[in-house]
């Protein structure tokens, strides 16, 4: 439906510049702000009570305190991000620990993981989407500490999927054999969320 449909009198004023046009997925527009999307209040966990855990289908769970986590090798990456509410932001700069580093040397038969967050949020991801240099647990944004409303002290960053998969306030990764939907995925959002295929909602 909508084939050949034109909205009478609509011209549009956010056509992306030619040099970035191929970096904006369908239905998205470029923003200069950093809008916020979350379902409830922003949790605030004190750093001395913060830890990060890798558990589930692993021989021995791994746990880091904040100081231990910050002592892990970190990297600075520049990525384009795409929110399901339609905005995209290009060349965002993040600092954090690669998920490869967190899972390094781990033996597992799991194919999926569930990210667990303060506030009870979860999101599900195939393991292959967070390994091989595709995902980070970030604590820095644009040269500063990540602010709580944007997911600080630390959030997941999985920039090739819609941004709700980059779970805010992340505290752990649970490796699992079978996929099961997380918070937004249970509420009608797409299970995978590829912005280039415009997989916003269930069935897309």
């Amino acid at each position, binding site marked *: *439906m*909508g084939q050949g*449909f*034109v*909205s*009478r*009198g*609509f*011209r*549009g*004023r*956010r*056509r992306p510049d030619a040099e970035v046009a191929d970096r904006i997925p*369908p*239905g998205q*527009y470029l923003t200069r*702000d950093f*809008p*916020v*999307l*979350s*379902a*409830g*209040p*922003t*949790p605030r966990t004190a750093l001395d009570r913060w830890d990060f855990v890798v558990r589930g289908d692993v021989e021995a769970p791994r746990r880091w305190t904040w100081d231990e986590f910050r002592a892990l090798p970190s990297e600075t990456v520049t990525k384009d991000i795409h929110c399901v*509410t*339609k905005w995209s932001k290009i060349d965002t700069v993040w600092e954090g620990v690669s998920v490869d580093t967190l899972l390094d040397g781990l033996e597992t038969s799991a194919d999926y993981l569930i990210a667990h967050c303060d*506030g*009870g949020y979860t999101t599900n991801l195939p393991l292959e989407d967070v390994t091989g240099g595709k995902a980070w647990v970030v604590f820095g944004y644009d040269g500063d500490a990540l602010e709580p*409303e944007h997911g600080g002290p630390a959030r997941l960053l999985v920039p090739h999927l819609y941004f709700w998969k980059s779970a805010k306030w992340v505290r752990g990764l649970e490796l699992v054999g079978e996929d*099961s*939907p997380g918070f*937004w995925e*249970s*509420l*009608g*959002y797409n299970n995978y969320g590829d912005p280039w295929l415009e997989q*916003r*909602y*269930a*069935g*897309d």
Partner: protein
Amino acid sequence: MGATETVGGGQAGRLAWRLAEVIEIRDETPRVRTLRIGVPGWRGHKAGQHVDVRLTAEDGYQAQRSYSIASAPESPWIELAIERLDDGEVSPYLAGEVRPGDTLELRGPIGGYFTWTVDDGGPLLLVAGGSGVAPLMAMVRHREAAKRAIPTTVLFSSRSAGEIIFRDELDRLAAVDPSLRTVHTLTRNQPEGWTGFRRRIDAAMLAEVAGPPHPGEGLLAFVCGPTRLVENVATDLLALGHRADRVKTERFGPTGT
């Protein structure tokens, strides 16, 4: 919140784009317009859900934005309340250019968390900033259509008296329904004799309006509006002792009051 609850309200499969007709347009304030839209094959919505609207230019360029449904699920059409941002792309079109009889492309209803039905009960605290009142109005209208006297307080922040969206309807409903209360705050200009609040919503105002945390599950709060307002109100409600899992938020973006 089961895995079976889809955005489409239960039916599986892709949420299709539909062509819908603008039936009627009402000016709510100088900057906010209600569009009443007839959607063929619409299967209804839950109060709090939104639709995605997609505009297409002659050359094929498209823009999509989300708009909350402000009408009750009981209505045969849907209504959107759209605030015109003059330098925006989609809102000046919807709240300016569009005329009755025009066709819009949309899909929905979307959203399974920021929703309320009378069976969810209360007491309800609905906190709105500007056009953030839209999904909360759907809740008020649903409650009214279902004739359920669930104790409800609307705390509504607007810039000035002339910019209070749905003011007459809210006042009219509250006048005949003792279980519905509307409290206004005006952040920029207050008319002479204004007896409501005169500042941005803060913890003291929330404490005064919402009272102490209720026993049991406590009140159920829905907060919607510009990001800054939503952040502050949600944080203040927790600090006042309300339960995090009973405070639901929807952020319209960085603009507004």
